[in-house]
């Protein structure tokens, strides 16, 4: 059939189309990067490998969260609890070392497990009931934060072991460990989303939940898995952050959920669910990371940095809105 030959050509055109769809944020990133690289105020400090790795390390925990948040938002949900889970996981891991004398790997696993557990609780409630994810995770956000304060008595749990700092502040070669973890998690997430059946099902559930039921997709199972994954990522972010700060801190990760959501949304994922790519989220997180870096290098007042960040997020989604309206 001559249809066949045609469709092969069209697939290649599809790759171009994918690039075209993400063009907006790619250009935005290049412009930002170029500005920082060419601006006389920032150029010397900016284009050093040390600064590059610094930025990557700074965005790494946000990227862990944003990986899972991309899935959550494509599913048509939201997870507000991840910031608080960071605090609780970090505190639990630190306390396991300091108070209970556990070995560091076991302690880290305990911390990550707490994150996973909270994710599973979120997923269980959201899958089994019709309570909106916003409400469920708003509640578990408070619960996790509260537990972190109760467990630590409100003060940081310090860990004074060199080995503890490895995953958060260590290097393998010249590359910071958190960055390596970030790359591994990005690959895993991309594989799950693009190459597995549950990955496809996330798009189906987020795109049209009734159709997913008629397709025989287990909507509850998918929801449970995605929120559990989100908890797991928050757990990892929590222990990495605790390692970098030499302590489990009950105030850690405050507002981290919003940074993750911002990265996802700037990356072009629709809050309505059903569409989005991890590739977009990566660029979204990079834009936010380099923006913070650039503002610091330019010595912009940190109060003003909030304003600028907000404006950039609004601008990014506004451009998206204009482009979608044209279609």
């Amino acid at each position, binding site marked *: 059939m001559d249809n066949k030959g045609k*469709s092969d050509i069209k697939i290649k055109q599809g790759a171009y189309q994918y690039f075209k769809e993400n063009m907006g944020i790619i250009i935005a990133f290049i412009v930002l990067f170029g500005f920082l690289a060419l601006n006389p105020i920032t150029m010397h400090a900016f284009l050093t490998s040390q600064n590059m790795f610094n930025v990557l390390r700074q965005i790494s925990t946000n990227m862990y969260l944003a990986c899972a948040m991309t899935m959550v938002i494509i599913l048509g949900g939201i997870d507000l609890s991840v910031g608080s889970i960071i605090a609780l996981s970090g505190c639990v891991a630190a306390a396991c070392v300091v108070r209970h004398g556990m070995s560091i790997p076991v302690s880290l696993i305990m911390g990550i497990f707490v994150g996973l557990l909270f994710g599973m609780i979120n997923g269980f409630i959201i899958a089994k009931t019709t309570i909106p994810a916003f409400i469920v995770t708003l509640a578990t956000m408070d619960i996790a934060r509260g537990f972190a304060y109760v467990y630590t008595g409100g003060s940081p749990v310090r860990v004074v072991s060199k080995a503890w700092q490895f995953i958060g502040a260590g290097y393998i070669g010249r590359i910071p460990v958190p960055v390596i973890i970030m790359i591994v998690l990005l690959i895993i997430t991309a*594989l799950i989303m693009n190459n597995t059946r549950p990955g496809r099902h996330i798009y189906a559930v987020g795109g049209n939940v009734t159709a997913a039921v008629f397709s025989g997709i287990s909507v509850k199972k998918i929801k449970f898995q995605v929120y559990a994954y989100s908890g797991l990522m928050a757990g990892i972010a929590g222990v990495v952050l605790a390692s970098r700060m030499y302590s489990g801190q009950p105030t850690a990760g405050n507002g981290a959920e919003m940074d993750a959501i911002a990265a996802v949304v700037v990356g072009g994922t629709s809050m309505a669910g059903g569409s989005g790519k991890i590739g977009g989220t990566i660029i979204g997180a990079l834009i936010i990371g380099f923006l913070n870096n650039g503002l610091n290098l330019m010595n912009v007042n940190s109060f003003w940095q909030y304003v600028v960040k907000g404006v950039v997020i609004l601008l990014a989604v506004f451009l998206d809105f204009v482009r979608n309206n044209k279609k």
Partner: protein
Amino acid sequence: MNETILLKMKNIHKRFPGVNALDNVDFELHAGEIHALLGENGAGKSTLIKILGGIYRADDGDIYINGEKKEINNVFSAQENGIAIIHQELVLVPHMTVAENIYLGREPMKGKFIDREMMNSETEKLLKTYSMCFTPQTLIVNLTIAQQQMVEIVKAVSSNSKILVMDEPTSSISDKEVNFLFSIMKTLTAKKVGIIYISHKMSELWQICDRVTVLRDGRLVGTECVNNITKDNLISMMVGRKLEQYYTREFQSGGKTVLRAEHLCDGEMVKDVSFELHEGEILGFAGLIGAGRSEAMQCIFGLKKKYTGSIWIKGEAVHFTSPVDAVKKGLALVPEDRKLEGLYHIQSVKYNATIEVLKEFIKGIYLNKKTETDIADKYVSMMNTKTPSLNQPVSHLSGGNQQKVMISRWLATNPSILILDEPTRGVDVGAKAEIYSIMNYLAKQGIAIIMISSELPEIINMSDKVCVMANGTVKECLPHNKVSQEAIMKFAAE
């Protein structure tokens, strides 16, 4: 009966791309009259009503109200002219009170504030007039469907509507409520309100209506007084059309029994459904909307959690509670409402066509893109789907091509039993013919097909056997040589 002509629609034309929805239709409504509007699905009833209600504009033709020529350009001008339409789906605000709903958008004011006392007392008067048993302060959510309809009616009358259109008001309410509704309609006609009444329940016509207008294929067949006409006359007025040539069915007697259902009941729409399906057979399911056909199939496909009755597939007793299990046993269901229940709109044709067979090209994290494309291409081109590419978002295709993608999705699962719920709804004539010829081909391959359809010509010309359902039960199973539109309507309208 007063003979003042309240509404006159003259030479109404309305064309949609590819269809003449209304062709030179005249319609007349007297004051104080209940005038039934009859016709099959697609006959043009709803188009005519939408023109009257200002949702569509007629391409040609005039509307006179009380003898005066009026332009009805939008919903607002329809309301201005005293036209109120009570849709099948009610449009009340659920968490507001009865009074607030009735006065929505035209609240009585006392200075800058809403005059609640006056609103409630006025509503109370209205409710009393029609002997309603709820208060103005009741929230809409706490009312039954029938009571909500009453609120719609009161709302329409309170804004001095003289022309009331009721679109299948009795389709979802009980007999007792129907009688109450009829008594209210009588009260309204005594006040010179004209009512246009759309219903599929023919027996109601002689109970309540004065005249009846029949439409068919967008044309006016005739207007008669109900007392001068019999049910048989009406049926032949409704269905008396020539059958199109595009049915390419080679009828065959089926082979072995592949599916047997006995006494299916879901406690709601499905009351007692039993039938048998054979290899290579197309079994048509005819009936009116709300007869429980789709719901019965949803039981079989595992989409209903709770149902009673027995199902055998190839001799094996099954009781699916999830479509996953049904698919494993070779069942496939192409749902009635492809927009709501079928398509992932923003996703590509390829994604939509392969979502059921991910196992065949995704093993763990290994994705074989070539197999994926091959599968999508095979079934999409087998259905002769017209799409610029497999990566085209499915929402950009026409209705017919979307339906073909839906059928491709399920053909890819190699089903032995294929359930098609309204396979040609919203599909243009060319695509229809293609879907019919695919169905014929599949049946010849030995696939057993169940086709639910509200289009009688399609049921008659495609089915080896026809099960006619009404009120949640299979009334009659007609073999191909005994099927006629009249026979089906007789059992369906019972």
